[in-house]
């Protein structure tokens, strides 16, 4: 993973000093609430319903065991002993004290972490595939480019007061696990006709009030032009993005208003003076970035023997077998698997993790995965490099701390924002809805029989729970002061990205498990063999679901 040198460390340390001064001035009354607001946001600090919330950056989801231990210590020292993995791979603290935030940031800096630009109208954390570098369908590891973008976007002087927040995601695989179609900029590593790998550049995707799938502004961009081209896009947005209405301020609205062809031309015009300038990437810099994401010292195995041993263990212990099947995926190196640790156990808020669990995962990462972990935008944690032969031992340890839930990609592995329990923007609670659904569908056989299905829950229009791109999306809405839930079907975050369609009038919270039951049983009745929920939905459309859910009881 990326290791700071003296320059990176200095930038982060000086940022902590700057924010300490700003916090002090705010507390002394020298800095107004309005002036402090964007400054604290750009250091990750929100003021929420019950307490401040601090969003800590996890660049492209990568963490070391040392960093995880520090996070555990921070949750104990400054918070209530737990943290939350967000839908953009970041980690959030729900109960820090504003006065102590500079100390938290200093502690984070001691392990090469920060909270810079995790919020505010600026370029946010760059996200990517949680299986980057190990995915079997990978064309090229996206992380070196994520790090290059991280450095370029960090404290960028021109783009700190944009019309609205700005999110970039990068993917280098056949299957898109980074939701690049739903980002302000999506970058996909693709070959050109000569087989040289460059970037396809998508702009103007996004969720929120107006969900839009990104448009291609450049079919293939040579790698060395990455930063100057991004700069041209950002400059067009900074100058022309709407600032009169925050709901129309994202770049997706600008791209729609201009039309993608005119937008592309405006970017090209800006690019003329930037292209081939000093920000053009050098081969040395790309090579330097790549040195931080090399393969660890993988062991050589007798792969047949290790596969046979695993098969025996699975047979002897079907619960373990289930977990291997659901929570692990193929690896580039034979004899290894990438393991997803579910943070979606029933009874716990999706994505929440306690200090003890953080520390145990740090130990497990050291023992089984070269000391590295990744957060996922589905709010789980990945150990990317686990020897097949160690899976059983790993699983047993996870079981002991409630982290062996075998549901990755299934119904109860829901994406869920913190919602009205914490967030001051929310119209409705989302965690109790997730819990009610998990409780209702706790029968594992039924859940596995339903097959892979993505259920995404947001407590408001801002769509942090990505409800538009869930196969089943649930959105909390406010109806005359009452919390209601709107359901949409057919969304998808894959390369065949789609925005879900609204099923009909919204439901009361207590009715949601029944509504889910009707949707799922409609699918079960209509599916043909081997067809998953999304495929059935795409074949039969929304009508049969609508008829079942809204049928009048006789």
């Amino acid at each position, binding site marked *: 993973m990326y290791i700071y*040198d003296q*320059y990176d460390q*200095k*930038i982060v340390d*000086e*940022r902590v*000093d*700057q924010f300490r001064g*700003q916090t002090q001035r705010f507390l002394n009354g020298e*800095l107004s609430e309005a*002036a402090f607001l*964007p*400054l604290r946001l750009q250091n990750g600090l929100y003021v929420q319903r019950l307490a401040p919330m601090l969003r800590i950056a996890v660049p492209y989801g990568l963490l070391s065991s040392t960093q995880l231990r520090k996070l555990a210590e921070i949750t104990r020292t400054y918070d209530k002993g737990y943290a939350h993995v967000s839908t953009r791979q970041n980690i959030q603290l729900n109960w820090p004290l504003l006065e102590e935030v500079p100390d938290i940031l200093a502690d984070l800096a001691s392990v090469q972490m920060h909270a810079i630009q995790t919020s505010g*109208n600026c370029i946010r954390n760059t996200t990517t595939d949680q299986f980057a570098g190990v995915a079997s369908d990978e064309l090229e590891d996206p992380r070196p480019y994520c790090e*290059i973008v991280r*450095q*370029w976007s*960090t*404290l*960028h*002087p*021109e*783009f*700190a*007061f*944009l019309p609205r927040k700005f999110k970039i995601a990068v993917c280098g695989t056949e299957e898109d696990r980074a939701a690049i179609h739903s980002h302000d900029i999506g970058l996909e590593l693709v070959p050109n006709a000569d087989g040289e790998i460059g970037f396809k550049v998508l702009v103007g995707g996004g969720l929120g009030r107006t969900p839009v799938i990104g448009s291609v502004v450049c079919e293939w961009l040579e790698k060395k032009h990455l*930063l100057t081209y991004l700069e041209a896009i950002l*400059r067009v947005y*900074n*100058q022309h993005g709407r*600032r009169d209405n925050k709901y129309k301020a994202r770049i997706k609205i600008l791209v729609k208003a201009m039309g993608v062809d005119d937008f592309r031309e405006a970017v090209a015009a800006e690019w003329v*003076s930037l292209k081939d*300038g*000093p*920000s053009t*990437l*050098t081969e040395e*810099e790309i090579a*330097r970035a790549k040195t931080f994401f090399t393969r660890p010292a993988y062991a050589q195995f007798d792969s047949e023997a290790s596969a046979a041993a695993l098969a025996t263990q699975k047979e002897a212990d079907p619960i373990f077998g289930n977990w291997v099947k659901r929570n692990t995926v193929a690896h580039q190196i034979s004899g290894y698997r990438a393991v997803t640790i579910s943070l979606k156990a029933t009874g716990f808020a999706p994505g929440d993790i306690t200090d003890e669990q953080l520390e145990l995962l740090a130990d497990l990462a050291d023992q089984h995965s070269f000391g590295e972990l990744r957060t996922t935008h589905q709010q789980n944690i990945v150990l990317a490099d686990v020897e097949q032969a160690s899976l059983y031992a790993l699983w047993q340890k996870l079981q002991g701390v409630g982290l062996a839930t075998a549901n990755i990609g299934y119904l109860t592995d829901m994406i869920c924002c913190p919602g009205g329990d914490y967030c001051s923007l929310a119209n409705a609670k989302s965690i109790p809805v997730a819990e009610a659904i998990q409780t209702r569908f706790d029968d594992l056989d039924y859940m596995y029989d339903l097959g892979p299905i993505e259920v995404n829950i947001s407590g408001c229009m801002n769509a942090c729970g990505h409800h538009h791109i869930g196969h089943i999306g649930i959105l909390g809405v406010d109806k005359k002061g009452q919390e209601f839930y709107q359901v949409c079907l057919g969304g998808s975050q894959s390369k065949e990205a789609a925005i879900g369609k609204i099923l009909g009038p919204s439901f009361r919270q207590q009715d949601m498990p029944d509504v889910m039951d009707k949707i799922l049983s409609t699918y079960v009745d209509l599916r043909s063999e081997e067809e998953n929920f999304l495929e059935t939905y795409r074949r039969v459309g929304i009508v049969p679901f609508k008829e079942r859910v809204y049928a009048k009881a006789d």
Partner: protein
Amino acid sequence: MPKLIKNGGIVDDADRDILTIEQWAALDSKTDSAVQLEPGDLIDPLFEHLDELTLVAVNFPVFTDGRGFSYGRELREKGYAGELRAVGAFIRDQLDYLSRCGFNAFQLEDESQLPAALTSLDQFSERYQADIDQPQPLFRRRS
């Protein structure tokens, strides 16, 4: 006489006319002219006259409107060498970014803030990006 920060020191503001972009465009001679840009102004007409301009002021009606940052950078990238002044509601915490975008003069609404604002100019000793102060990005300078 109003005071402002210029080239790293606090100085008295020279009394001179600063024109809107429309007034400026109507000038017969642009020699030694001064113009104030507002967010949304099209700045392309300035590019032909960068040698004649001696002052470009950029107004920040609210400090969260960041369009002026791009104006500054574009003008410097095109070769403008005269005074580039931030005016309006920007705050001292933005001085570092403004300076990196090419601004060398800062007229804060509250003059009493000027001495404190000066300290904001040297809070950071390093940066990643190419900018007007440092045309080489860190990746070309790393040792």
